């Protein structure tokens, strides 16, 4: 099985307006999904992200990023194990937030580097 990164893109403005109860029920829903992924042996790890962020570039022009104004921003990531890219996509499709058309998930295979080309100090998790 290969590893895949699921990048979750959310409507940040909608997220900011959620009530406490709505947030709780969102969390419950995601936890249930995560449990499901763990049970089927696909779960590796994942974390939600805070709304606030910075964009940096060489000219150190820092901005709050388009996180607040933009409708869509990355709100979290999940790493899974899957048989192939198709299965990884099919798994992402079962995310309850995708089903309800609240988020879009980008699915990318994580590159496996050969032992030789790994930079020194590289550690497998």
């Amino acid at each position, binding site marked *: 099985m290969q590893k895949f990164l699921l990048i979750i893109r959310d409507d940040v403005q909608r997220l900011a307006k959620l009530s406490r109860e709505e947030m709780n029920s969102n969390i419950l829903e995601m936890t249930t999904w995560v449990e499901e992924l*763990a*049970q089927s*042996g696909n*779960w590796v790890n994942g974390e939600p992200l805070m709304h606030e962020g910075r964009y940096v570039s060489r000219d150190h022009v820092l901005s709050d990023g388009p996180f607040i104004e933009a409708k869509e921003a990355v709100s979290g990531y999940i790493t899974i194990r899957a048989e192939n890219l198709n299965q990884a996509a099919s798994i992402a499709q079962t995310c309850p937030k995708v089903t309800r058309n609240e988020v879009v998930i980008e699915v990318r295979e994580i590159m496996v580097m050969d032992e030789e080309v790994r930079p020194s100090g590289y550690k497998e998790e």
Partner: protein
Amino acid sequence: MNHSADKIQKESDQLYRSHYGKMVGWLLYFSSDIDLETAEDIVHDAFASAIVAWRNDGIPANQAGWIFTVCRNKALNKIKERKRITGINHVTHAAVHEPEFSESVLKDQQLKLLFACAHPDLSPKTQVIITLKYVANLKVEAIASVFGMTIDGIDKILVRARQKIRNEKILLAVPNPRSLQARLPIVHKIIYLIYNEGYKSSWGKEILREELCEEALLMNKELLDQNIGNTETAALQALMLFNAARFKARFGPDGELRDLEEQDRSLWNRGLIALGCEFLERSKAGPISPYHYEAAIAYLHCKEKDFKNTDWQSISQLYFHLLKINPNPFVQLNYAIALYYAGEKTMSQKLLKELEEKPFLNQYYLLNATMGKIYLLEKNYTIARSFFNKTLHQTNFEAEKNYIAKMIKKIDEVEGLKS
């Protein structure tokens, strides 16, 4: 003779339940010109015509045969339509060859369907859903209630999955033993997930839940009987049987949830435990899989007459190995619990602390309920109460909520005595 509409509906529902997948499988076997979608349409049509025809003519003695004949005729018509240009030699040949409703072919067909559902491009959940539909013959409504989804949602998944399977040769060709072996691990996982879905204590309709567990056991047994299964299959069978033995004891007379410690062990089904032991024995010849460890853990629980004699040392070691080949926070939680009861409290605390720091996990009902229980056992009532309180909005299930309420009441009583 006329039958009431109710009776006809009931009979046809029953038949659907027992024969839907067989009919679909048989049609695919009957002619390579019929794809899965067409086969399903034909069987649905046939059931619809049955309800009309039986109302007028009465229910036939051989209902399966009746539906089957209709399916065959409809299939022949479909093929004729398509072959009109290319000539119908093949069709006439099929038509004179009276098809036999042979049990063995059907069984093979159903197993073929099971392996087709184990398509590696589909998510495990999708695999489970299409297996419930085509192999266990569950209606979409029932599948929707199992997953707490809408009928529409299940339909969407089925349409997508069907497109995938349609391009597959596995249904039409004679199965090649090697390709079956390659998919066996996925088939195991499907069966395991169907079983767990049925075993979960968190949702209602006990009859449907038991049915899912039974289906899983039957499918898995079929793999072994047809010599497709291996020692992993046997380990999975053992695991499911040990858990099935405790199925009824998990609830008290009023439907309240009982944890392992509270269960009345005289209600455990000794017959199933003995049967589980046989399969565990059979599983020993091969390499050790996660199912082996889980089965061994379930066995260690099953063999003890009471909770306090549980061999937590061995159980925690088994969890340790399971965690190594299947690293996952939910296994880690069980490992931590086993360590606690084995007396390794420091190590247990360390693992629980790790879990608590993980996102998602810190919002997880079972983790917080476990923390609450451990602090309760440690007589640290304030912290125990805070963990139990935390769980209250972390589950939507009555049985779990009631369990927590019971634990909080226990704390109230102890603290009442102190003051």
